[in-house]
């Protein structure tokens, strides 16, 4: 392929004003050139992407796979705009997992629904040149215009490593630009280099697909996939990269490896596990303690809104829809935004600081006992926030059976959608007092529920690995990146995206199911002179009555049976469903909060059984949908639903009868 200009420093055809000349026909809309960020994991690629695009990002999915597609726009110094795309980190173009396959397919122009990039920014870690350069050499063979971002240049300097950038650039035949993404250094140079690079490529390069070459590459791959050859190829690149790295770096004194010093504590056989347990405990306590004030503010706001609407509108179905349906239902979920954000804040910090892989290292032994891999720990921790990103994160697990097992148990990790359910029941039934002077009893019960979920998940994995996902013991091989301070910008952008996704859910599936439930619970109206609560005459009342016999043995009443149905759409909807059901059911002259209503309507064994149900609860529809996408069929989501339903039923039943027996 000859369109590539391997020397981007060569003068192109610089435009003076960046706008197309006035006589250019404007019939075809200008498509912004696309530039892909590619690099090894831990090269700081996403930080660089965030620094270049700010918050002007779009997060979507590639068709057919759940791999996240992140794009943003960057203005070049010549005034043009380019689309930047952040591709999943990978060590090579021989993918082992679905997200690595996306990276390969995009840069080769073989990804469905994606243009081939016009240029590549290869992001490499200046402190680990020999490994990262190997990937640059592999990328260079693609023949796409490319610049190299020598990221974390400050850390290399701190380690006493001098890199001869000019020489590196000459050897590679590529522009090499030192950057410090977290401090926004070197960004202008990247933009300028892209401007030069994109000025000299033919206008139609974006649509130009070297089909013959692609065909060849695929064939090569087939040949190379026979193992030895592929590794021989890799070996050559690896050695070339080492030679280049050795030629361009000079080490002043011995490197100060403070990551290794931290690891002496973090990976120590005694202090390591203690630190991990402490961090997790602190994280869950903080989720409750820190969220209290913003949650009170939010729920106060919802209350005031409900009162304002009630006062402004005449009594009737419309007011009931707004106040009892939408405001109550959606409001009772939105209130949990602070807790969800705090949890994600911790998870993002653990990931970006590099600690998460240490946790995987510490947990590998335990995970191996139940037939899993330390790598599974990361998706499982993410599942504490939500099973969906957790299941998506299993894409980094290469062994299919290992990955499947992790997917199947991910919903047993208590996701943040269960928080609203736990929080309401705990507030209603567990006294708010201190244990041993420092710990809140409510927090302890919550921690216990999380614990039950984890134990259930490990037990399930143990059984699954010996039955349905039986297979050879997977191996565990993982880079542990150096420690870094999480960059506030990266955390901020991550949280913003999580918050937005949560609110979109609240405005979408939760709003729809709340309104549907309100309608079902409102019509038909009770006949004149009815003696029972209005809801008993409604469609919802009949559904609840029909389901009740199934759930009566485990202590559930028909209101609960009713709330479980919309709770399938999204778990937290169970709370808004209970809110809606009990609010319609309530004596209009004496409105009570949901907590007070539950306290008078449920017995303690019922409440505990309900909590137990939700520890194992068959997951929400979105989780099943993601599982279907990730496993390529309905078989595994079907299995997942059945086994979780059985666990939840048995767990709730056992809890109910034990609690009753103990009085």
């Amino acid at each position: 392929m000859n369109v590539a200009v391997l020397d981007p420093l060569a003068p192109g055809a610089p435009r003076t004003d960046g706008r197309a000349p006035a006589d250019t026909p404007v019939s075809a809309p200008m498509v912004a050139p696309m530039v892909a960020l590619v690099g090894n994991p831990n090269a700081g690629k996403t930080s660089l992407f965030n620094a270049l695009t700010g918050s002007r990002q779009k997060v979507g999915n590639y068709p057919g796979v759940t791999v996240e597609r992140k794009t943003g726009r960057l203005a070049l110094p010549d005034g043009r705009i380019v689309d930047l795309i952040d591709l999943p980190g990978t060590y090579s173009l021989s993918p082992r997992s679905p997200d690595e396959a996306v990276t390969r397919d995009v840069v080769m122009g073989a990804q469905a629904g994606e243009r081939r990039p016009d240029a590549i920014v290869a992001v490499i870690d200046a402190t680990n040149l020999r490994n990262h350069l190997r990937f640059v050499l592999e990328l260079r063979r693609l023949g796409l215009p490319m610049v190299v971002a020598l990221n974390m240049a400050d850390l290399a300097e701190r380690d006493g490593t001098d890199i001869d950038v000019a020489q590196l650039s000459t050897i590679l035949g590529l522009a090499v630009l030192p950057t410090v993404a977290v401090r926004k250094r070197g960004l202008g140079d990247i933009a300028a280099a892209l401007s030069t690079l994109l000025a000299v490529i033919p206008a139609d390069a974006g649509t130009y697909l070297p089909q013959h070459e692609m065909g060849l590459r695929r064939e090569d791959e087939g040949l190379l996939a026979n193992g030895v050859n592929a590794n021989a190829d890799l070996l050559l690149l690896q050695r070339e990269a080492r030679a280049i790295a050795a030629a361009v770096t000079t080490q002043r004194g011995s490197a100060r490896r403070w990551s290794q010093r931290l690891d002496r504590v973090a990976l120590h056989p005694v202090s390591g596990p203690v630190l991990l347990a402490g961090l997790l405990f602190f994280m869950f306590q903080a989720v409750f303690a820190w969220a209290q004030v913003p949650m009170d503010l939010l729920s106060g706001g919802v209350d005031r809104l409900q009162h304002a609407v009630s006062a402004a509108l005449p009594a009737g179905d419309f007011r009931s829809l707004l106040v009892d349906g939408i405001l109550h239902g959606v409001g009772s979920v939105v209130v949990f935004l602070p807790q969800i954000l705090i949890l994600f804040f911790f998870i993002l910090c653990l990931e970006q600081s590099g600690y998460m892989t240490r946790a995987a290292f510490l947990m590998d032994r335990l995970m191996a006992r139940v037939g899993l891999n330390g790598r599974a720990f990361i998706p499982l921790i993410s599942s504490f926030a939500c099973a969906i990103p957790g299941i998506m994160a299993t894409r980094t697990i290469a062994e299919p059976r290992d990955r499947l097992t992790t997917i199947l148990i991910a919903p047993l990790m208590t996701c943040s959608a269960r928080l609203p359910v736990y929080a309401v029941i705990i507030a209603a039934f567990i006294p708010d007092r201190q244990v041993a002077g420092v710990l809140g009893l409510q927090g302890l019960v919550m921690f216990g529920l999380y614990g039950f979920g984890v134990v259930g998940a490990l037990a399930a994995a143990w059984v699954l690995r010996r039955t349905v996902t039986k297979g050879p013991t997977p191996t565990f091989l993982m880079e542990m990146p150096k420690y870094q301070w999480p960059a506030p910008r990266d955390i901020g952008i991550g949280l913003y995206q999580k918050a937005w996704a949560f609110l979109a859910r609240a405005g979408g599936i939760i709003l729809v199911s709340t309104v549907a439930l309100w309608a079902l619970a409102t019509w038909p109206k009770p006949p004149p002179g009815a003696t029972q609560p209005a809801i008993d005459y409604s469609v919802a009342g009949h559904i609840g009555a029909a389901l009740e016999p199934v759930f009566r043995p485990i202590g559930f009443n028909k209101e609960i049976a009713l709330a479980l149905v919309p709770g399938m759409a999204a778990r937290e909807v169970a709370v808004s469903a209970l809110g809606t059901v009990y609010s319609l059911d309530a004596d209009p002259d004496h409105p009570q909060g949901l907590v007070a209503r539950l306290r008078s309507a449920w017995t303690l064994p019922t409440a505990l059984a309900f909590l137990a149900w939700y520890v194992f609860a068959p997951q929400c529809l979105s989780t099943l949908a993601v599982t279907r996408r990730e496993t390529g069929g309905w078989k595994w989501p079907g299995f997942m639903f059945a086994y979780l339903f059985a666990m939840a039923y048995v767990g709730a039943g056992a809890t109910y009868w034990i609690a009753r027996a103990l009085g």
Partner: protein
Amino acid sequence: MTERLTIDDLRRGEAATIVTIDREAVDPENARQLHEMGFDEGVDIELLHRAPFGGDPIALRVGNMCVALRKRLANMVVVARVVPE
């Protein structure tokens, strides 16, 4: 003066050089992964940590990188101690 041994024989904090990788014993996927993590003949390594609860997996410095792997795989890598001068 060096002696022939595998990674698992190293003490914590001990440095060594990779002599050979037993590619016959490792499946090609794993061998590939080892290379992607920087393992190769002649590369300097150091045993950094052994995990709690049984000392498996282990953490190594491979070149400039810190890598975690299980002993079973690590045993496929033959090393030579670097004897301090």
